[in-house]
């Protein structure tokens, strides 16, 4: 599905990255700890997280994450949004909690995929 459809399913508000709304995504990664994102998130996935600091954007950029989905109705600081613009990382925000957000996307066919760092092994669990 496209990021536009993701936005729709999560009743999310797009904060950064209007030009990327047609990006296709198939996988997602949910985490509140950046070390996990660095260790497991697969390039091209959407990242669902409650972390709103700028480091999330840099992490997403470095891993070629398709978009950051901020959950729990959190509003990110201006610096995070600015970095999203600068590094071309789409950011959207939803009121749903991580569990609900993951559940909704999962129900629509998005798969949880982890790619363990240092291997070519892509695990769909």
């Amino acid at each position, binding site marked *: 599905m496209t990021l536009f459809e993701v936005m729709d399913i999560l009743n999310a508000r797009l904060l950064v990255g209007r030009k990327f709304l047609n990006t296709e995504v198939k996988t997602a990664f949910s985490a*509140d*700890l*950046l*070390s*996990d994102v*660095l*260790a497991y998130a697969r*390039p091209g996935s959407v990242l669902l*997280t409650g*972390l709103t*600091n*700028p*480091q*999330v954007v*840099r*992490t997403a*950029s*470095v*891993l*070629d994450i398709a978009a950051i989905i901020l959950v729990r109705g959190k509003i990110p600081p201006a*610096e995070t949004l600015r970095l999203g613009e600068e*590094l071309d990382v789409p950011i959207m925000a939803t009121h749903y909690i991580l569990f609900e957000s993951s559940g909704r996307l999962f129900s629509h066919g998005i798969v949880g995929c982890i790619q*363990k*760092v*240092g291997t*070519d092994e892509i695990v769909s669990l």
Partner: protein
Amino acid sequence: MSLKYDGKFSVRGGDFKEAGKVAVEIKGILKKFGIDAEILRRVAIVAYEAEVNIISYAKLGKIHLQVHPERIVMDVEDEGPGIEDIELAMRPGYSTASELIRELGFGAGMGLVNIKHCADEFKITSMVNQGTRLRIIIHVPAR
């Protein structure tokens, strides 16, 4: 065999606001060399985790990146408290992170582990009250 790139990046201890900046910069530089995406990812993860460690624990540090045709070498050096028990530090989940670090989403005790997993060759040395050094080598397969 010529060196394709040789650069040093400084990291200031305690500079949490900038965490990841060097990793992003390194990725940008290497992308231009047309390096394989998976290798790029590994380099980026190493740089990021190493950078966060320096910021979290040291006074100052630097990441020295060298790109050779057949391997990428990263030498990370910092001035800081050093690691007393390296084996303990390498244990997944072991962390000495402060509250601030955890709030940023780090401090899960996976930094050095992640770095080691990304490396083809990994060496760590440390002296208490002086600092820590890492050497990470990632092999670039011939096309």
